[in-house]
């Protein structure tokens, strides 16, 4: 077993999902090599070298790898896999991992495995299907197992702080992406922690009534719960209350915080698929018939406009 982990980063920071991918890779046994590709990679490479479990870091530097375009990364990864005889490729199941990994599978002619939540052996994996309503155990006989792992299913690998892994450059190749040009990115900046790694998530649904009220109640409650992130249901995103990157659910983000506090979210199965591994679920909704109450640890039937300020006051006591 030799595992190549794809490092997701933004040139300054290693993204949280990478640390979970490294933990998942460690369950496969065998050495872990981390691949860092980007326009400038030296800072990231030394950060990755100090993550526990990483044996070696391979870097690929150049304009071709800026912005993580799969048209450039997939040929690089498949070349590295062949040159290094890697048996496994692991990436976090984030927008980055989901975009790149299948393209690698196509180049290597192997069937990728998406959103792995448990590793039973180097060739046997568990993954959710039907919006998490079933778990399937699959066995791969492909020469290279290419997979994304659900980041909430694997704890983050620790960083020991001192560079322990060797760092070397991958053999050069021309991976200039063909037929695609990156134009721009509009990424929301927030003082709050990232949704997929926050200990507490406050989420709002259509029950918030309007965009103004969505932000009023979620921000009010979030401010009273330090370290909390704000999320949204699909209905709230579709209604324009919140941007798409806050959507939690089957086709959005998957979160597993200590505390999940849903405000005016009805609890459609697609939403529950994205948060049912939260440790404690609290649901506040004025509709006592909301399906979410059936899985909530604590439910409160009340009007949000009354309950939210009262909750803030009670939390401050």
């Amino acid at each position, binding site marked *: 077993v030799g595992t190549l982990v794809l490092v997701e980063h933004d040139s300054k920071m290693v993204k949280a999902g990478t640390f979970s991918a490294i933990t998942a890779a460690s369950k496969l046994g065998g050495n872990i090599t981390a691949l860092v590709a980007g326009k400038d990679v030296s800072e990231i490479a030394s950060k990755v070298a100090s993550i526990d479990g990483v044996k070696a870091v391979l870097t690929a530097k150049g304009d071709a790898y800026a912005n993580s375009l799969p048209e450039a990364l997939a040929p690089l990864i498949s070349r590295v896999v062949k040159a290094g005889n890697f048996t496994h490729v692991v990436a976090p199941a984030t927008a980055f991992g989901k*975009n790149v990994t299948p393209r690698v599978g196509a180049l290597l*002619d192997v069937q990728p495995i998406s959103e792995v939540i448990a590793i039973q052996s180097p060739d046997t994996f568990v993954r959710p299907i039907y919006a998490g309503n079933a778990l399937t155990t699959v066995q791969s006989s492909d020469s290279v197992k290419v997979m994304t792992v659900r980041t909430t299913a694997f704890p983050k690998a620790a960083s020991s702080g001192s560079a322990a892994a060797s760092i070397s450059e991958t053999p050069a190749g021309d991976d200039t992406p063909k037929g695609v040009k990156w134009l721009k990115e509009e990424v929301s900046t927030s003082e709050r922690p990232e949704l997929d790694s926050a200990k507490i998530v406050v989420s709002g649904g259509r029950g918030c009534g309007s965009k103004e009220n969505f932000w009023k109640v979620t921000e009010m409650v979030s401010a009273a719960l330090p370290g909390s992130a704000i999320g949204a249901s699909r209905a709230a995103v579709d209604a324009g209350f919140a941007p798409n990157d806050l959507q939690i659910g089957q086709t959005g983000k998957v979160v597993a915080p200590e505390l999940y506090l849903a405000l005016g979210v009805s609890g459609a199965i697609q939403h529950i698929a994205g948060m049912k591994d939260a440790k404690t679920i609290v649901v506040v909704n004025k509709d006592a018939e909301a399906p979410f109450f059936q899985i909530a640890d604590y439910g409160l039937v009340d009007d949000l406009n009354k309950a939210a300020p009262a909750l803030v006051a009670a939390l401050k006591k």
Partner: protein
Amino acid sequence: MSMNPFDEIALEQAIQLKEKGIATEVVAVSVGPQLATETLRTALALGADRGIHIAYDKPEVVHPLSVAKLLRGVVLKEKPSLVLLGKQAIDDDSNQTGQLLAGLLDWPQGTFASSVALDEKKTQVTLTREIDGGLETLLIDLPAVLTADLRLNTPRYASLPNIIKAKKKPLETLKPEDLQVEVKSGLKILKVDEPPKRKGGVIVDSVEALVDKLRNEAKVI
């Protein structure tokens, strides 16, 4: 059998491109048993010009890589400028077929699209994609593979006259052999289990009671 909701969005985008005079023809393709022809008839009723049914009846080996290889066979035959797919199926939730197809064809890919605009010369598409922190915009040369996210458009419903008209639209059936594809998979499903169910807890009658439970019972705040 109903159409995957993300594929409905992809199809709607194709039909809109034709209505705007940008696309000349919309071909709907589905891989599956005979029942898949019903889904294709729905696509024809919604506005596709013709359908291609790739007949295959063994779902246990029709994994995304096989589907992508079959679609590549259709692409090589039909030579479209644009292939639109849903970003993921809502049964196996793999989110792979579009990326696999783009990789097999060595075409650029624009996944998780929330906005698609073709230039006047029909050689490039400006595409906005939903990524983790927000949105990313790419300029992609045709031919390309695009996958639709939820907010790309709102699919229409088929009208009764169009449902009747769809019965006369051409629908061709191909076998994997016709596309020189051997359907096999390196992935075997060993078992399918039900995940542990969460049980509902208690309904509290006040925010004070709720905060007390969170502090002293769940100990999460």
